[in-house]
């Protein structure tokens, strides 16, 4: 690895009703997880334009997490379905431009799953650490 001091930069875009609330619950329960992820709140994962994610990778993100409600539980009926579809397509785009599609992850964490949020955090950080810095990093600036 080029830089021993490298720490992953991971961005999470999460929905207000399920995953953000789940992350809050993890806090209330003092579930400890790695501090390498920064969250941006949107009202629904359906809001997430795939271009946001491409922008994040272009900016040098090592990983992107999108997390919303479980299917059938979306506060807006079906925004999470649409997000999942977009993320699925986006993954194939990432693969085609030579970026490991494991750098993009979509998870479903409900407002009552604080413990699951902690596990997702552990797992995402572990995955990105294994993959190392994003190859797009050198283009970032």
């Amino acid at each position: 690895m080029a830089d021993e001091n490298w720490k992953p930069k991971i961005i999470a875009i999460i929905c207000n009703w399920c995953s953000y609330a789940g992350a809050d619950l993890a806090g209330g329960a003092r579930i400890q997880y790695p501090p390498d992820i920064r969250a941006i709140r949107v009202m629904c994962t359906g809001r997430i334009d795939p271009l946001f994610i491409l922008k994040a990778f272009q900016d040098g993100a090592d990983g992107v997490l999108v997390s919303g409600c479980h299917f059938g539980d979306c506060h807006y009926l079906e925004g999470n379905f649409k997000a999942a579809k977009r993320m699925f397509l986006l993954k194939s785009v990432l693969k085609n431009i030579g970026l490991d599609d494991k750098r993009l992850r979509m998870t479903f964490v409900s407002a009552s799953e604080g413990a699951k949020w902690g596990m997702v955090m552990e797992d995402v950080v572990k995955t990105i650490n294994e993959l190392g810095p994003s190859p797009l990093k050198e283009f970032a600036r």
Partner: protein
Amino acid sequence: MAEVKKNEEPRIGVFVCHCGTNIAGSIDVKAVMEYARTLPNVIVADDYQYMCSTPGQNKIAEAIAEQKLTGVVVAACSPRLHEPTFRNATKAGGLNPFRFEMANIREQNSWVHMHQPEEATSKAKDAVRIAVAKASLLEDLVPKSVPVEKAAMVVGGGVGGMQAALDLANAGIKTYLVEKSPTIGGRMSQLDKTFPTLDCSQCILTPKMVDVYRNEGIELLTYTEVEQVEGYIGNFDVTLRKKARGVITPAEAEARGIVGGGCTGCGDCVEVCPVIKPNPFELGMAPRKAIYIYHPQVSPLIYTVDFDACVKCGLCVEACGEKKAVDLEMKDELMTVKVGTVVLALGYDIFPIEKKFEWGYKNYDNVITSLEFERLICASGPTGGHLVRPSDGETPKKVAFVLCAGSRDNTGVGKPYCSRFCCMYSLKHAHQIIEKIPGVVPYIFYMDIRSFGKMYEEFYYRIQDEGAKFIRGRVANITEDPVTKNLHVNAEDTLLGRPIDMEVDLVVLAAAIQPSAETEKTRRLFGVSCSQDGWLLEAHPKLNPCGTTTAGVYLAGVCQGPKDIPDTVAQAEGAASAASIPIHRGEVELEPYFAQCMEEKCAGCGLCVNQCPYSALALIEKDGRTVMQVTEAKCKGCGTCGGFCPGGAIWMQHFATPQIVAQIDAFLLGGEQ
């Protein structure tokens, strides 16, 4: 509004909260505050022990006025907790409240990285930088005020739903009470007595049922289910399915022009009905005809045809005669009602305790559940109140009560939670058999006795004094003597530290409870989340126990979590109160997170139209072009259209593309690299 206003040069104030030691314990608040001062557009940064307190809020308001701020960032707890608080403070300072942005450095930082102060501080700096980036681009927004329909709906006609409906109606609100079964009353009508007062359950419930039936403010819709829900707080359009009852009421008869007709509850039809099925109200321990009422005290007193069982022989039609109340050709009907707010009181079911096969329920005749015990000991029950062994009809002399049957069970078969009222009703059952059967000995196998309510602990002492035997230990298994049908209860007495093999005549399992079968479907229709156990999720466990994250939908009773009758009724009154507030105010403010079409960018492709789950978008002709138009009243602000528009022509207010991209850029490109 299609134009996006250019902001003036942003002037941002950042306020970092210590939250006592909740945040300051692991984050260097001063360092975060000093860092904020170095960020672009930040004019002032401050920190305070408790930003949410009056002095904390005053700091924000004063800074806005003094420094002519255009945006405010508070780094504190979750916006889901205190966004409204700080929006008010922002407004108090004379700024549009939507120019406020929150950085969550407590729930998603200090609390989850308690032992990593350096990383937590660095994460907090990032969070502040991200929030400042967004705050620099926020604009004035005006919440939309919508009128509230002066009507409410209560779903579920158990004691909680009945109480909520009565309260709402008595507050002058037209209330629809929707109940899936043919009568209101719910689980409580199946109980014999209630603890700790030992008053007869039906005696206190039936008058309430009559009150509900007679209340002019309540439209009672029994044998009715929720089919579809549209709209939002203030304006829910609920489609209901009135299931074919096969019997018409006197009012319906009048509408059909049948003079003096309709069901009077005489029961002549039942006499002649040839079909016999198990009665679910008596848990299958008594027969029921295909035309039936659940129990003598039903409200409304109208018979119902069980079309799954009915052979359409027509004998009941003949027996009914001139009243012409029976209509075997009746079909389900759909009706739509408009209500402002909704209370869900969906109740519970008994956990299928046969899954805990080691206790032999449904395998051994003399193992029954507590609800079956209630029916057997009840004077109006299948045995006229004589507790008998199902195997031979003999009166039991030694009865074992098994508590936590499926509750507090982490084996994966049962339920991890405490079902909360089983201890108390088992004490009551012990009392009832001591009272009724001379020489009987009740053995209560318990893990803990949770007598948590008013006069409950006193009741526990009383039952001890009356001679009930208490054995602390979970029952391992139960076996049957095939000849006598007596049962061997195997357990460990954990106080004496020795195994027990006790022969008894009857075992009563205090089975766990679980959300009622309809809960899952109904909660999804109303967009209400549930906890992992399936109980409906309240907006906040401490501060908003009756509300949900769906504005205008409130919770009452056990559907929110196990409760006894007093707690259910108390929560129902709370839910009714909460549900009446928007109705009495007459209007509600919706958060202005509406989609806007930037017409100059819109190509009129219409791809967004199908993305919207609320049909809020449509293509229109304007100035010779096709462009999309948003109906704000229908838009709920999810932004699914904005995440999809290929031309980037949709402006999602408060979550606009430049605002989100600025957050992404601020995190990844800004900061200490």
